[in-house]
């Protein structure tokens, strides 16, 4: 019973992260307001980070920290390398979002609109 539930969980977590990437991609490709596009990029970031950490999970594993009393438990620890990569990726994703939003503020002050089709048509 537990094994069958664990198999369903495998499809569940991978499927949820791939669905998050697809929902964010739909927002980037279809929507017209610039802030909606940046929200879509933020959702894609969340999906990718979840996918990376799920790859490194070990069944019955524990966090990779050697507390006093657990110094010999290296065989049951989850993979620490994807966690180090995702740590960097979260901070850089936030930096990209901040620069994109400041560009949107400048663009709104100049054109007084936020739709990408209007901005393409307006001349100087």
């Amino acid at each position, binding site marked *: *019973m*537990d094994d069958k*539930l*664990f198999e369903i*969980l495998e499809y*569940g*977590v991978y499927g*949820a992260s791939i*669905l*998050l990437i697809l*929902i*964010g991609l*739909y*927002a980037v490709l279809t*929507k*017209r*307001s610039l*802030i*909606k596009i*940046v*929200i*879509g990029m*933020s*959702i894609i970031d*969340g999906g990718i*980070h*979840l996918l990376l*950490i*799920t790859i490194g*999970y070990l069944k019955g*594993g*524990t*966090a990779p*920290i050697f507390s006093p009393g657990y110094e010999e438990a290296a065989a049951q620890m*989850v993979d620490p390398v994807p*966690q180090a990569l*995702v*740590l960097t990726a*979260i*901070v850089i994703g*936030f930096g990209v*979002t*901040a620069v994109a*939003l400041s560009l*949107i*503020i400048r663009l*709104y002050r100049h*054109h*007084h*609109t*936020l*739709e990408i*089709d*209007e901005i393409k048509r*307006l001349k100087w």
Partner: protein
Amino acid sequence: MIYLILIFFLLILMLSAAVYAVVQKDLLYAVIATGVISLVLTAVFYMLQAPDVALTEAAIGVALTTIIFLITIRNTKRHEDDYNKKDNLKSPLK
């Protein structure tokens, strides 16, 4: 057993918040839904035995990203307008 059911419930909550954030036209509600996605991601990261990543996502994804979006919405428009394809003479300056 209850652990797995809890993860399923959290994943369904995350996906419904994502769909709500994309569909909703009032941008304030969409930004709060993005914050809910980051919050649920923090809980799922903790359940997948990654406490450092959970701390970083909680501090940066929930608090700072939401506040930057809110300041941008305050400086620009709040509602996403409907784009009329047949109305080519609509002036953008009101």
